[in-house]
């Protein structure tokens, strides 16, 4: 039992430390990249299945931005279906965006 709890704790710590160590790879953006038009945006809804066009050939993992109350809902953006593919992220600094 002690061995199991030890293994569980070591596994959990290893996962957390790995995520933190490879933060640049696991996160899509730089930590300082600002989007002033999207303040306090709630977590993006992930649509695991493409309900609109199941036979379109588009992979099942599709991301769409949920409707957000806090920013302009009329400018709702449909995200491109590129989740879980490698894409080079934009790198911008706060000073560059000002």
């Amino acid at each position, binding site marked *: 039992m*002690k*061995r199991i*709890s*030890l293994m*569980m*704790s*070591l596994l*959990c*710590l290893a996962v*957390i*430390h790995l*995520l*933190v*160590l490879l*933060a*640049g*790879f*696991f*996160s*899509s*953006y*730089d*930590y*300082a*990249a*600002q*989007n*002033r*038009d*999207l*303040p*306090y*945006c*709630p*977590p*993006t809804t*992930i649509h695991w299945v493409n309900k609109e066009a199941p036979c379109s050939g588009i992979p099942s993992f599709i*991301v769409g*931005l949920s409707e957000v109350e806090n920013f302009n809902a009329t400018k709702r*953006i*449909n*995200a*491109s279906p*590129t*989740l*879980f*593919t*490698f*894409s*080079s*992220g*934009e*790198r911008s600094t*706060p000073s560059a965006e000002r």
Partner: protein
Amino acid sequence: MTWDRHLFGVDPPARVFLMGSDGYGRDLFARLLFGGQISLLAGLVATLLSLTFGVILGTLAGFYGGWSDAIIMRCVELFLALPWLYLLLAIRGLLPLRTSLAQAFLLFIIVIGLVGWARPARLIRGVVLSVKERKHLLAARSFGASDLYLVRRHVLPEIRGLLLTQAALLIPQYVLAEVTLSFLGLGVGEPVPSWGGILATLQQYHVLVSKWWMFFPGLILIPVILSYGMLSNSLQGDGPQIRSWIE
């Protein structure tokens, strides 16, 4: 470290915020992961510092005894009695308001680490006191072994298990200390994230009551602290068996 490739992403102008965004529209998931680098590193380095001081002073006190033991133990009592949060606030208050990231980070690692040496030192002193009376150590001394040799060969291996357990206890404690300090605005400055720094946004009432995703950095602390707690329990419970397995 900068990365050209990412695990996932969407084509601009769309944005994907797995954990939402903060007041400046910055990706909270990215800030959570990068903030972990600061918070966890602070915990690890401060623990290393504490244990280093604890080993040196605890071994000196236990091995030599006499006046050195008396002085070090009085210092231990003094440091254990210090309200560390107020001490940190006072030390931070003495420094200039605008300090660089490296300076601020080093400063609070050093302060946290130095304040926390007392408890491990007292435990190590107790172990050293019992080890130095053992017969094999007395025999080695009678053969002319130096103090340094005795400490390196016979004393340090005995406290290795204790150090592992102490490390597992101290790391989450120091991570929490970093979170507390950053929450109070004494940690690394913006835009560099840390878990406490991200949580500091919750000091604003409208964020606290309506932006539930801003609690994510607080939630990540739960598995970290639970895992370290379980680890220290396992190291204490099964004692030498698991410790030797890890070593």
